[in-house]
């Protein structure tokens, strides 16, 4: 089976600033990958290149062997770092919106998760707390039956109990033909659900390894290694 994601010598500049430099990565199917790096290291830029929201300055990026575009958007489920939903909408409206928009959206699954997290489908988005808004958005993204999930800082604003629920959702949703890329700096919370990690530093890949390889070779957790590598 082809890799769900391949980046070859991928670079992206904004004016004179090089946000990503010569990134080469292969992400197979069936993996949960952590994209880890300090603030401003290029995590979000990389994810936006995968979604097609940005175009590369050099090099190429392929999703399921295709250039990012209409076809890849059908199989990529993306959680942006910022919300794009209309705040006047009710949760129920948004569910209908997603159902219209994405053929792979599973409304029942979304409703069940909303119920588990005690989100009321008649509530308007603007009445929800920041954390609850994040939960709604994550549920929408995880309720698609996609091949690639891109989660940009998915757990930052939610409480620890909801965090556990969300991580469990990711594990439960795990499919052998789908992969999940999670960008975050809350490493300690997520490292046990990851297969592999990619450390990004100043726009370059500093390290790719499996979580247990890191623990075996460095005798410390990924979180510990991260703190050491990126010590300020």
């Amino acid at each position, binding site marked *: 089976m082809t890799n769900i994601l391949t980046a070859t010598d991928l670079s992206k500049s904004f004016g004179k600033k090089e946000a990503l430099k010569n990134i080469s990565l292969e992400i197979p199917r*069936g*993996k*949960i990958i952590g994209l880890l790096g300090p603030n401003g290291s290029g995590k979000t830029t990389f994810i936006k290149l995968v979604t097609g929201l940005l175009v590369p300055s050099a090099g190429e990026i392929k999703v399921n062997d295709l250039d990012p575009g209409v076809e890849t958007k059908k199989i990529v489920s993306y959680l942006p770092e910022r919300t794009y939903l209309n705040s006047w909408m009710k949760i129920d409206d948004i569910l209908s919106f997603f159902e219209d928009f994405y053929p792979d959206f599973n409304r029942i699954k979304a409703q069940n998760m909303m119920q588990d997290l005690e989100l009321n489908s008649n509530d308007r988005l603007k009445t929800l707390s920041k954390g609850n808004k994040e939960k709604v958005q994550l549920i929408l993204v995880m309720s698609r039956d996609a091949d690639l999930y891109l989660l940009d800082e998915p757990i930052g604003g939610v409480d620890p109990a909801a965090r*556990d629920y969300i*991580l*469990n959702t990711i*594990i*439960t949703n*795990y499919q052998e033909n789908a992969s999940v890329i999670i960008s975050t700096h809350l490493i300690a919370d997520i490292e*046990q*659900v*990851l*297969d592999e990690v990619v450390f990004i530093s100043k726009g370059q890949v500093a390290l790719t390894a499996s*979580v*247990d390889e890191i*623990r*075996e070779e460095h*005798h*410390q*957790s990924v979180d*510990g290694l991260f703190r050491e590598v990126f010590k300020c």
Partner: protein
Amino acid sequence: MKWNIDSDRPIYKQLIEQIEYRIVSGLYKPGDKLSSVRELAMDAGVNPNTMQKALAELERSGLVFTVRTSGRYITKEIKVIEEVKKTIAFDEIERFFEKMQSLGYTKREIISLIETDKERGQENDKHPNSN
């Protein structure tokens, strides 16, 4: 029993140890069917591939076996379980001795301390209300 993944050691190794512990302590009984990889992974809050790796390792050591199409089971061979139990016990004893020796006790002193503690324990058993 709660899963407890907290040390810096490889996660699959911690999973192996905790499943072994569940087996030798009788929480999982000989011949019991194990939950699916996904259920176990969810329960432990770990990556399913990591859980899979731990179970494959347990299978190799004979504690767990797979029946095609029906799932994974705990071994029915008590001898295998007893062996693992002994290994765990010796590891624990070794760790205990290391700790006591780092406190400055000799092996002989440690053993006599254990005897004293045992007697104290028996006293307490006789008079459960006294301190």
